[in-house]
């Protein structure tokens, strides 16, 4: 599943999460920190990953979730989310459009009582 990580979605996440660190929002601050452009919040990526999965499985609930952040994802680039479900466990990998590993993790799902 591909997602383009735009300046707008990162700005919206910064407001909602109150994580307004300039490294996520400002090109100059990102450059000072050694990056060519702002980087996405790791927790935006983790949150978005669960959202993409649950959008296709709305009757499930995530009971446990872990993720290791491997590399920063630059704002304005594409992220690819791969899910592999085995029983109630979903393995997850996030890569850039060119295949670089951004994050990896897994979560456990359970049917939601509605």
């Amino acid at each position, binding site marked *: 599943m591909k997602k383009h990580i735009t300046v707008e979605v990162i700005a919206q996440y910064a407001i909602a999460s109150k994580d307004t660190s300039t490294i996520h929002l400002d090109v100059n601050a990102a450059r000072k920190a050694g990056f060519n452009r702002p980087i996405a919040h790791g927790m935006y990526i983790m*949150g978005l990953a669960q959202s993409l999965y649950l959008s296709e499985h709305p009757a499930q609930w995530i009971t446990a979730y872990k993720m290791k952040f491997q590399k920063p994802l630059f704002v304005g680039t594409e992220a690819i989310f791969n899910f592999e479900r085995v029983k109630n466990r979903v393995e997850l990998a996030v890569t850039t459009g060119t295949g670089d590993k951004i994050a990896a993790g897994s979560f456990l799902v359970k049917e939601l009582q509605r």
Partner: protein
Amino acid sequence: MNKVQQQLYVTSEWISQYAQSIEAPLQKMNGILIAPSTMPIIFWQEFDIPWLKEVRALIHGTQRFSYMAPITAGMLLDCELSLTNVEEKVGKQGMLTFLTHTLVCKCNGDLIVTAETILIQVGDPYEKAYNS
């Protein structure tokens, strides 16, 4: 003391705003809105965390959430955030300090969620900040 507490009232508006920011579908259990599993990370912003005040250049290393029950709209959560481990390692970028934090949230004494966050500080650690 590397431990802080905060009582948080989780409104449906707060859940909706967070869910929208990560494009999460709004889910309900028994007709009540439930929070996306990653939402406790934004609880951090409601704490005054003395040991991180002087710390710069933090990288998010790993994150875990483990639920006993979903967080639902209308819950009053008693949350405690603590620094549970500090470990130094030498990496390619020089000294790395791994700061393990545990956030525990309960509702009426019942455990709802435990979240573990490992932040990595690159460079010399501000030991004073951790030990105060």
